[in-house]
């Protein structure tokens, strides 16, 4: 059984304001309950596989100067710095 308090805690960590969003919590809970189906499959001999690529196959690690337009499209900036809200 998934704990609703835990869902609310994770939502805050994901920077989701849950005020007036109780419906979200119940729907996420329903989805998580469906995911319990994953408990029924035997995965004891399974390894997690991933696609690998050697470093030589990656694109060159080159510095590409920013287009001035990129800076100008920022909402709030001074010179090359983005202005963000204050941190407490």
């Amino acid at each position, binding site marked *: 059984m998934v704990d609703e308090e835990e869902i609310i805690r994770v939502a805050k960590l994901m920077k989701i304001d849950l005020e007036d969003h109780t419906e979200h*919590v119940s729907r*996420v809970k329903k989805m998580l309950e469906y995911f319990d189906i*994953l408990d029924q499959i035997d995965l004891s001999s*399974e390894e997690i596989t991933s696609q690998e690529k050697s470093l030589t196959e990656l694109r060159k690690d080159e510095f590409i100067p920013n287009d001035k337009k990129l800076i100008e499209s920022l*909402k709030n900036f001074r010179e090359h710095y983005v202005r*963000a809200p204050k*941190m407490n």
Partner: protein
Amino acid sequence: MNLNTSILKYIEDVKSGLFTVEEFTAATLQRIKDVDVDVHAYLSLNDSAINDAKLIDQKISSGGKIGRCYGFPISIKDNICITGTKTTCASKILENFVAPYTATVVNRLHAEDAVITGKTNLDEFAMGLTTEFSAFGPTKNPWNLDYVPGGSSGGSAASVAANECLASLGSDTGGSVRNPASFCSIVGLKPTYGLISRYGLISYANSIEQIGPMTKTVKDSAFLLNIIAGQDVNDDTTIDNNNVNYLENIEDGIEGKKIGIIKEMTSSDGLSSEVSTATKDAINDFESLGASCEEVTLPTIHYTVAAYYTIASTEAGSNLARYDNIRYGYELESEGYEYNSYISKSRTKFGPEVTRRIILGGFVPSAGHAGKYFLKALKVKSKLISEVNTAFKKFDYMISPTAPVQPFKFGEKIDDPVTLMLLDYNTVTANLTGKPAISIPYRVVNGLPIGMQIMANSLEEKSLLQAAYALESKTILPEVPL
């Protein structure tokens, strides 16, 4: 002018001088004006489409070098970037976002003289199966405006089906090209992972999503694939396709091929009787084309929807963290807010489904829960890949209906998240395994379409398109009643 034509026929007609690119573009824009007020396939239109068409006409009349597309009109899903134009992902959070660069797929279309008609509607950030989660209102199914067009590339599918363009590009993370293709009676291809560059596609779940062509005919999909497939220096996940010509020998047929009928997808609880009957008929058609069909069981499929939503949400939670409204976004004065509370406040602009996926995407990989959800989902993915690879040692193709049901009415399924998730049951396997799969229009029953899905082994698109063409040649379908 007949707008219900294929790309290949259009090119033939432009070459023979039957009409100019400008005339066809103008007629297409008029069609959009006439029907899109009802269909709502487009979120924005390309104001320079007529000028683009005129320039191509000038090239043709002056004997200049013409790109392979000859100015055919194509729409683009609004999660694919085009410099200087809005790319909203059908989200309020990107309502005024103007893309600073162009996606590789669009650059390749421009280089071959395609005319972009505009950007099409989708479920917000491509999360959904009906377009009901678009922040700008749903798209309607051109076959019956009371019904959903499928999703998330529902605007793309509807724009093609309603003759508001000749083709579209969509993106497919769990079925988002194939499902709306099936619901709107068009062809939709999800290629092998890495075959088409994702550079310029706004990320949702990078490890499984692909851009795919959505067209009226199988040959048109092959034609588009010839243009947009192949390696891209800007996307390190792209793979070399050895410049395969997907159109060449497309009519070769499937005589002697072996087809696996996926048991889990053709006998599931959610399968409607109409879709089940159509599937049996399709199997008969494949046999009459000289292929041998045999049932194949892939037991891990039962767990794929849970694994898919776990993986997709995890990646979405990470990808959507960038929407903090600081570097770009909508106007929200930061004065009076602390850093974190400002971000949380700005993120209330996300719609309900995206909000839920972000929460889910934080929960399933988190410490204490990853073992139960995310790590298990990755293992299901591995197990599924080996099961499917084993099956492809025996079979050339595996088939199923694209969706277990036909299009349904707006509001009918939106309240039950599990019912919605299970609509992906037949499509997520191709995403989790990286295999190519295509949806082909097969039937129209009670005025609503049914599509068949064919899946092939990695990089076997050429063979996949041959099978799709063979099945397409067995079908006679009515014209869209719009």
